[in-house]
């Protein structure tokens, strides 16, 4: 089935992006770049994983109930897409206002 191939491909891509974000959180040098890795990678991977879940449910239940559940999952996707970058923005702005030092080549 080609639809199963698409589902597995989307989930695998989400897994790779989540792993990239985790590596970024663990290995980046300071607060802002860690937040950058966490925010962007989590948003993109959540979008891919949720869309693959919606596709899977739609391919298993191709009737009205399946379409409704898939629409609810897509609604979660829209809200994650709005709220996750906003939360990252708020955290980084608060850190800049209270004076968390960004990482640089040399300290003066």
């Amino acid at each position, binding site marked *: 089935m080609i639809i199963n191939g698409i589902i597995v491909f989307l989930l695998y891509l989400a897994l790779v992006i989540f792993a990239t974000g985790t590596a970024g959180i663990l290995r980046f040098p300071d607060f802002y770049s860690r937040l950058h890795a966490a925010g962007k990678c989590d948003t993109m991977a959540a979008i891919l994983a949720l869309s693959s879940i919606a596709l899977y449910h739609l391919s298993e239940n191709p009737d009205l109930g399946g379409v409704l559940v898939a629409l609810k999952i897509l609604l979660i996707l829209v*809200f994650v897409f*709005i*709220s996750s970058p*906003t939360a990252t*923005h*708020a955290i980084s*702005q608060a850190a*800049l*206002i209270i*004076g968390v*030092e*960004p990482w640089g080549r040399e300290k003066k």
Partner: protein
Amino acid sequence: MKRLQEHFEVHDPNLNLIIQTSIRILVPFVQLFGLYVIVHGHYSPGGGFQGGVILGASFILMGVGYDLKKSMELFPEAWNIAMANLGTTIFVGTGLVCAAAGGLFLDYGALSNWIGIEPAAWRSLGIFAVEAGVGFTVTSVMLSLFWDLSSRGELDGGL
């Protein structure tokens, strides 16, 4: 670092533009979802407490994104106290009406002695009334807890 911070003046009115815009987009959906969780409390996961927490969190979100004054304009303090007491009154009143109809406290099936529909239908309606009462109380108590904790009990715009 000072040079970076000079770009951000704390009293800049456009400082929270992104946060406030996305909160304005999200809050109606959050409130709709809270009402959904309260109303569907006896079919699906959720109920009065969880739906009340979601409803209260929508007002807390307005308080976090704007300030305490905006949150108290949207949901005035007198309404808050009235709504907490209304929810408790609905809960206890449902129980006492059931007791007056000949059953135990919160024994909804006994209401079929007064109005003759089936006891199962009365239990469904009674649970719905109790869930609505719990939802009202939890919404207003959540919001007043946030107000008191964020302004140290003064309610004068702490955040």
